[in-house]
């Protein structure tokens, strides 16, 4: 298990437990996590890390669902918006003036489901 995913899983657990209390949930079924493509997170690894972290807590048994958010950026020179795989962020207009990241760096809990 990667230490990186473990740290993230523990934060997800903390927020889940706080949410369970806030919304009066006894059982957590699903946690939907929004992950930007620029975040280096491996879904299976995160699930294993979460299960290990949550095993003795009221959040045990919850399934993690990862929703990937693609990268979107705007060229700082010509303003053109573009998206791309993490290997090709260049402005399609050929500018090399850097980019303003519009999306793709997210890491938040989008939704939880429970009873």
């Amino acid at each position, binding site marked *: 298990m990667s230490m990186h995913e473990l740290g993230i899983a523990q934060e997800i657990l903390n927020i889940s437990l706080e949410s369970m209390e806030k919304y009066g949930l006894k059982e957590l079924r699903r946690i939907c996590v929004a992950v930007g493509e620029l975040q280096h997170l491996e879904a299976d690894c995160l699930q294993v890390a979460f299960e290990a972290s949550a095993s003795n807590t009221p959040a045990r048994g919850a399934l993690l669902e990862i929703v990937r958010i693609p990268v979107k950026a705007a060229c700082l020179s010509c303003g053109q918006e573009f998206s791309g795989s993490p290997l090709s962020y260049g402005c399609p207009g050929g500018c090399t003036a850097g980019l303003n990241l519009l999306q793709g760096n997210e890491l938040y*809990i989008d939704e939880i489901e429970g009873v």
Partner: protein
Amino acid sequence: MCKHGNCGCKTKGAPPPEAVAPAKYHPAAEILGRNSLLGEKLKSDLEKMNVFTINIMGSAGAGKTSLLEALLPRLGREHRAGVIEGDLFTSRDADRIARLDIPVVQVNTSGGCHLTAAQVAKSLPSLPLKEINLLFIENVGNLVCPAEFSLGENTKIVVLSVAEGDDKPAKYPLMFIQADIIVLNKTDLLEASGFNLQSFYQDVRNLNGHAPVFEVSCRTGSGLDSLAGHISRLAAPVVAAHG
């Protein structure tokens, strides 16, 4: 069940105890929010003490500690630096900095791949904060997750060595997007490593239009005065305020 009808939405108020159908909630919680909040607090606390903070990131072996060793003696006498060294194990880096007679504290993450704001907060009391005006935090050697954890810094330096290859900015974009200063180290090995400067600059400029790039060699000393000058200018207002 839901006050809006049957959409299942339960964003306000606790459900009645007899509820059995799963309901959906939107806590809108940043997963690293706790770290970011603490990072903000650290930044504000350090600024109040007139300490300018620099987070140095880069791969293991890029030359982050060597850069500090080369940089610290080149900063003017008005700079009184302190260093936090982050590493998985050993105090070897802190020992190297201590030899320069610079206050230093070693943080061992015991396998953790990045420093967190909490680790920085915990190590700050070990530094003579009233006496220093420049704090360097050397992160754990890694081009991935340190980019995601704020440590309360004013400036992020990313160090890449030519031996790692010119393709690293494109492979680790977040690190290079967030950099305020990019240092290309070990340029004395440019020819031997076959590093393509043109391709490197193109990838860097695709990602980041503002960060100056300093080509340095900690071994020969080239480029380091210019980098030290840039850091001095950035920190000048804080250093002046510190008196």
